[in-house]
C-alpha cells in the first residue's frame, strides 16, 4: 500500500455521521438509512409521525442484490512513488460518507433513501388510498 501525501484539506461541513479520516483503515462499513417526508402545508401531527416509520415502507426491507464473492488471487505490488495531492476543497460530506486519506483494506457501505411527497390535493388525478399507492411503489 502506498503512502498518501496531501498538502491541504478544506471541508466546509460534515453532517449525519460522515467523517474525514486520515490514516490507514482496516475496515470501513458506513451505513445510511433515510426516510425523507415532505408534506405540503408542513403540518406534522403525532398520528402522522407514527404512520411514517421505517417498518411501514417495504422498500426498507428489500435486500440488495448479491455482489461478487471476494476472489482469491496472488497480488504483487511494486510501489515506486507515494500518491501526492495538492489541495482538496470539499463543500460538504453527508449521510455516512467518508473522505479518506490513506489506504483502505476493506470497504463495505450501503445507503437506502425513501422519499415521500404528500400533496394536499390533485388537480385532475383520482384520489387514492396511500396503502395502495405504497404497494405500487414497492412492486
Amino acid at each position, binding site marked *: 500500500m502506498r503512502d498518501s501525501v496531501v498538502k491541504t484539506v478544506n471541508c466546509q461541513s460534515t453532517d449525519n455521521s460522515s467523517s474525514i479520516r486520515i490514516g490507514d483503515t482496516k475496515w470501513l462499513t458506513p451505513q445510511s438509512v433515510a426516510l425523507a417526508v415532505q408534506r405540503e402545508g408542513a403540518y406534522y*401531527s403525532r398520528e402522522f409521525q407514527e404512520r411514517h416509520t421505517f417498518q411501514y415502507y417495504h422498500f426498507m426491507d428489500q435486500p440488495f442484490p448479491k455482489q461478487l464473492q471476494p476472489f482469491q488471487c496472488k497480488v504483487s505490488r511494486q510501489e*515506486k512513488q507515494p500518491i501526492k495531492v495538492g489541495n482538496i476543497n*470539499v463543500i460538504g460530506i*453527508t449521510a455516512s460518507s467518508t473522505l479518506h486519506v490513506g489506504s483502505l483494506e476493506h470497504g463495505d457501505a450501503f*445507503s437506502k433513501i425513501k422519499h415521500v411527497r404528500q400533496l394536499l390535493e390533485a388537480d385532475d388525478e383520482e384520489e387514492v388510498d396511500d396503502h395502495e399507492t405504497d404497494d405500487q411503489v414497492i412492486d
Partner: protein
Amino acid sequence: MNVKFINEQLYVDNIEITGVSSSSLFLIGDANHLQFSSSFDTPPESYYIENIVPVVPFSG
C-alpha cells in the same frame, strides 16, 4: 491467478468537490476490497395524494 501492479508516480494538484453523500467514499490511497450498495426511491415515482385539511391555531 497472479496480478502484478506497478504503481508509478501519481500527482494531483487540485481537487474540487461539491458533495460526498449517501455512504459514498472519496479515497486518496489504495484499497483492497470495496463493496458499495445504494438504493433510493424518489419522486415522481413516490408521489401520492392525500386530502388533508391543514389545522392552524385560531386567532382573532
